[in-house]
Structure formats: structure tokens, C-alpha cells
């Protein structure tokens, strides 16, 4: 309020108005003298495309390239030198590489048991986590969409709160909660007369901890999307079904579900993609342990690339990861998209 008053005071003062007029005249002078650029749209899009090309497109292709090589070390070679008058621009080679053909892929698929472990761990999280999270998200959204619920906004805000927590930040909270010795969860179990669980100290405990953590973080996110989807279902459809004597379940089965199908599909696909890329949570909460029981694919890529500097091999893992994720998405879209309910 006060700020607005001050703002309007300043804006109506003579000095401000004179200054702003001066600024305006200068601007007019500039725009009158700047000729219209014939390729104006290209001027608008080129900054984007320059960054896009250098930092997104090139690396993508280079990863593919790198997966057929062994990384030997930093290169001092000059890849390309352009002499333009007094100016010399030289582009250095990116790395010293040794061609190995498909051998990375062969090792990955047939011989690398740690990679297979990471694939198994990630798949486990995916298989438990995605149905759990989507199911809970749908249930929450359905209940919140009911006409009789009061304080909808409050419930929605509270349940969506974890969406605002950073990935590493929320992971540290779960690290504490599930601590085997001092964690609140084990304390609660003991209070209830149960025996404490070795959450982070056992393979299955650690995996389940990750599932619970990720569900906590993304439940609200999926609920928001599903709730928005539910709100687009025309009210008349429910009314028509009611007149036809449909039960609550029948209304859900024959009205809600078919109408919600595209949104549900989006939630499933994006959760799948997200789960296969999981990194921060195992890095912080379990460190991939105990004894690699929770190491994920991306964590394996990170270890291979940046702890052991097997950059070529890590690139091959990345390519495999992209293939897996794309295949999963295509399968889900294929089976979820076109068939009628």
C-alpha cells in the first residue's frame, strides 16, 4: 500500500515525467534510425539457437560419438584453425580418444554385473514407485474433486508443499528420518512395540526408503495435474450417468477414467522418465549402498564418468538409458493412448 502510494507520487512528479519524456525521445530517435531488419524473425530466434546448438545439440551428438571410444585424456591438438586477417581462431580438439567400436556396448550388455545391478535397482524403484505414486495421486485428486470437501484450497496447498522442496534438500530430511539409530521412524516403530528396521543398513530397507522418499516428493505434483484433468471432465457427463442410475464406482469407471486417460497417461509417462533418471536421492540418502543395493543407472553413469574417468564407457551407458526410457514411453503411449475404455 505504502509502496504503491510512493510509486504514484514519484510517477506524477514533474521531474520524473520530464526524465521519462527524455528517455522516450531518445528511444524514438533510436528506433527511427534503426532500419527494419529484413530477417527479423531470425534475429529473434538466433540467440536461442546459438546456445541451443552449442550446449544441447552438439553434446547430444557427441555423447553418441563418444560411446564408441575410450577417453584417453585432455587433448592439446588443434581441430580447426581459421585465419581471418590478423585474427586467428582455433578450435581445439575436445579430447584424445581411442576408437573401440561396439565393445562398450558388448561389455555393458553381457558382462557388466554392476550395470545390471543398477538396472535392477532402478527397475525395482520404477515398478513399485510409479503405481504407488500415481494411485495415491489419483485417489487424492478424486477425493479433493468431490463436491462436499471443504477447505479444498488448504488441503491442496498442504499436499503440494513438497513440490517446493529441492531434490537434495528433501533427501537430507529423509536421510535423517530413516536413520537406523536416531531416526524418527525407528523411534515410532519402537514406541508402537515393533522392532526397529535397518532402513539404510539393508538392501530392501534402503530400496523401500527411496520409494517412500520419492513418493513423498512427487505425490502433490501428480495430484495437481490429475486434479486439473478431473476439473475438465464436463459436469453434465456425471449428471447424465447419475440419471442413468450409475453407482459411484460406475461413474468413476465409465466417466472419469476414460475422460482422464490422456492426463493419466502423461502422469505415468513423466513419472517413468523421472524414475529412470533418479540420482540425487540415492546419492544423498543411501550413497548407492549398502554394497550397491540402491545404485541407480544415473549414479552408475556418474561414477563411471567422473570418479573413474571412463567417459566413453559412461557415454555408452547414457545412450542405453535414453533407449530404455524412450522404449518405455513409446510402449506406454501405445498401450495407453489409442484404445477405447
Amino acid at each position, binding site marked *: 500500500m505504502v509502496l504503491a502510494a510512493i510509486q504514484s507520487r514519484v510517477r506524477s512528479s514533474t521531474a520524473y*515525467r520530464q526524465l521519462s519524456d527524455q528517455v522516450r*525521445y531518445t528511444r*524514438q530517435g533510436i528506433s527511427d534510425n534503426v532500419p527494419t531488419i529484413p530477417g527479423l524473425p531470425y534475429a529473434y530466434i538466433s540467440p536461442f539457437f546459438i546456445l541451443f546448438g552449442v550446449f544441447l545439440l552438439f553434446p547430444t551428438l557427441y555423447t553418441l560419438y563418444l560411446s564408441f571410444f575410450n577417453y584417453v585424456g585432455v587433448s592439446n591438438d588443434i581441430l580447426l584453425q581459421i585465419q581471418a586477417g590478423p585474427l586467428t581462431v582455433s578450435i581445439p580438439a575436445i579430447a584424445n580418444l581411442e576408437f573401440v567400436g561396439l565393445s562398450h556396448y558388448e561389455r555393458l550388455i553381457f558382462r557388466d554385473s554392476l550395470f545390471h545391478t543398477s538396472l535392477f535397482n532402478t527397475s525395482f524403484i520404477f515398478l513399485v514407485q510409479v503405481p504407488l505414486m500415481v494411485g495415491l495421486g489419483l485417489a487424492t485428486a478424486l477425493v479433493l474433486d468431490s463436491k462436499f470437501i471443504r477447505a479444498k484450497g488448504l488441503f491442496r496447498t498442504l499436499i503440494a508443499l513438497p513440490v517446493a522442496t529441492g531434490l537434495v534438500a528433501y533427501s537430507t530430511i529423509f536421510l535423517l528420518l530413516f536413520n537406523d539409530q536416531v531416526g524418527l521412524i525407528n523411534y515410532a516403530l519402537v514406541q508402537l512395540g515393533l522392532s526397529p528396521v535397518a532402513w539404510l543398513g539393508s538392501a530392501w530397507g534402503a530400496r523401500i526408503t527411496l520409494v517412500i522418499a520419492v513418493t513423498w516428493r512427487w505425490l502433490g505434483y501428480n495430484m495437481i495435474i490429475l486434479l486439473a484433468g478431473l476439473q475438465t471432465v464436463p459436469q453434465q457427463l456425471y449428471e447424465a450417468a447419475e440419471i442413468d442410475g450409475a453407482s459411484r464406482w460406475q461413474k468413476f469407471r465409465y466417466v472419469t477414467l476414460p475422460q482422464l486417460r490422456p492426463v493419466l497417461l502423461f502422469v505415468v509417462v513423466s513419472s517413468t522418465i523421472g524414475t529412470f533418471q533418479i540420482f540425487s536421492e540415492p546419492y544423498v540418502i543411501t550413497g548407492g549402498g549398502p554394497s550397491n543395493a540402491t545404485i541407480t543407472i544415473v549414479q552408475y553413469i556418474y561414477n563411471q564418468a567422473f570418479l573413474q574417468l571412463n567417459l566413453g564407457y559412461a557415454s555408452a551407458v547414457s545412450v542405453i538409458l535414453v533407449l530404455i526410457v524412450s522404449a518405455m514411453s513409446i510402449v506406454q503411449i501405445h498401450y495407453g493412448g489409442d484404445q477405447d475404455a
Partner: protein
Amino acid sequence: MATIDITKLRKVFGDENGEIVAVDDLDLTVEDGEFLVFVGPSGCGKTTTLRCIAGLEDVTSGTIEFDGRDVTDRRARERDVAMVFQNYALYPHMTVRKNIGFPLRLSTKQSSDEIDARVEEIAGLLGIDTLLEQKPRELSGGQQQRVALGRAIIRDPEVFLMDEPLSNLDAKLRSTMRTELQELQSELGVTTAYVTHDQTEAMAMGDRIVILEGGELQQVGTPSDVYRSPANEFVAGFIGSPSINAFTADVDGGLLTGPGGFEYALDDPSLVEGYDRVRVGVRPEDLRPEVDGAMPSEVTVVEEMGNENFLYARMGDVDLTARIESEIHPEEGVTVAFGFDEEDLYLFDPKTSESIKTKTSETDISYEQYVQPGPDQ
């Protein structure tokens, strides 16, 4: 103020899939200070023509001159034209004051104080001076319309363009705004080109009317010209409401015979000399029930409007409409003969649709006997 000369204007839209000729070889002059209305069915090229004048479309060929200056290749911002759009195109993030002042802020060196004073003057003229600090979405349709007008007139443009500015208003407001627009235009004296699809609006507002169809000019003339002396059957059908009754009749000397027992002997057979067949047109308001009338037809629907009755009838396979006095209400299903005066009869060439004969009735009945002496006489 400016005279607009349009010469051989042609505008073709198209890509590799084909071309659409939106405006075809249009020659037209808009006189200085004139209110010219472009009218025609949708897709006739009226809006494209307006946009070419505005500089929003590049022309394919031809020239556009303002007062003899060729502006064909000038951009919109260099032409000194103002335009009111169908959806008003008010800037949603600016207040009314900013909206109206926007053209001055962009293209003149007036100070903020001068601009404010001018905005307030214009707002006063349009009766929206109490709304200056509001945003467009807080305004009613009529108020938004006035803001759009204000933004157009604030910089005294040479040419004023309006693209269906009244079509988003409800019927009652539309007729009020129609009058206001006309008063405003004659007060400012700005050359105005106005596009509408509504022939009533065109008749009511235009000094002259341009009728377009399929990108081609059909006729330019005063409202009375295009109503009484249409150049062809299209114009005759488009102007006037309800539409003119038209059908084909065989010619036998001076005798016209047509569907459903239509039979009319022309007083002046020379009109149809050389024709075997001819298109006959009679406006609904010129028909009246008549003993032995030329058009025996079966009444299908009677609409009582209070001040008059609309009769819908069938003569053979032709549907007829007649506007008759409210005292006469025939029952549906009876056959009534309609007649007309030959001076109200239209005849068109059946091949080219060009007019052969149009209205010849008296148009200049003296009214001097009714004039009241003025206060100073």
C-alpha cells in the same frame, strides 16, 4: 485529411497449394472527408482492401496514393492512418489513459503533460473521461469501443479505417453508436473507409457505398444509387431488406410470362427487345395485393410486425416476399395476386446479370410547402 486513390489494386494470397485472388483490379477514389462504406458478403475482399489501405498487407500489384503521394510501399506506421478493429484491439495491460495516449507516445515528441491534456480532451469528447484509470477488461463493450475510437482519433490521422467496429455490440447499442460515429466523423471531417457485412449499416452510414463480390468491384454509389439503380442483379439482391424477389421470365414481344402463371405486359416493350428471356426483379416493398395482379401466389406464412406485415408466398417454384400494410392479413394457404408499378420493376440480362431497367419512380418530391419559417425569418 486526404483523398485516397486506389489504382489497379490486386491482392493474391497463396502458396504452393494454390492461389486465392482476394482483390482483383480495384480502381477507386475516396474523396477528401468522405465516409465510404465497403460492403459485401464474407470473403468478398472488403477487409483485404481496407488492410491494404492501412498498410497491413503488401499489395500484389497496383498503387495506393494519399493526396497524390504514393504510399504503396510505406509501412503502416509511416502512413498516418488510424484503424478501429472489430475486437477493438485495446492493449489489455494499459489503462484507458495509456491506451488512448499510446500513438502519441510512440510517434510524437509531445511531452507527457501535453499528451495527458490531449487524452483528457478526447475522452471528454467521447464521454469516457471518468474511465481513464481503468483497464480495458473492466469496461463494457460500448465503452471499449469508445476507447478504441479515442485511440484512433487522437493523432488526427489523414485517414480513418474501421473494420466492422460495431459488430460486437448488441443491437440497441449498435444503432446508438452508428449515429455517434457519423456525427463524430462529420465533425472531424476525416476521410473514412468503413467495412461492414451488414447492408443496413452500410445504407445508414455511408456517403457512398462500395459493393464487392469475389474480389471484384460491383458498384460504387450513394445509398439511393445502389438501391434504386443497381448495376447488376447481385447488387440488387444484396442491397435492401428483405431481399429483392427475382426470377426468370420468357419474353414474347412486350409480354413477360414466368413460373406459376406470372404474366405481365410491359408498357414499354422496347426495353426487352432482342431478349428471349429476362430476369425479373421486384422489391418486397413494391408488391401489393391487386385484383388481376401479375403474380398469383399461394401465401405460406404471414408475419405480423405491427406496422406492416411480411407475406411469404409461392408462385410456382419461386419464393416471394411481400411487405404490405398491417391491415391486410390473408390466411395461410389462400392464393393472392400481387401487382406492382412498372416504374418499380427491375430487369436484368439473364447471361451477364447486368441491369436492363431499374427504378424510374419519382425521387424528388418537393417539400418546400412543409418548411417552417425559421426564428430569424
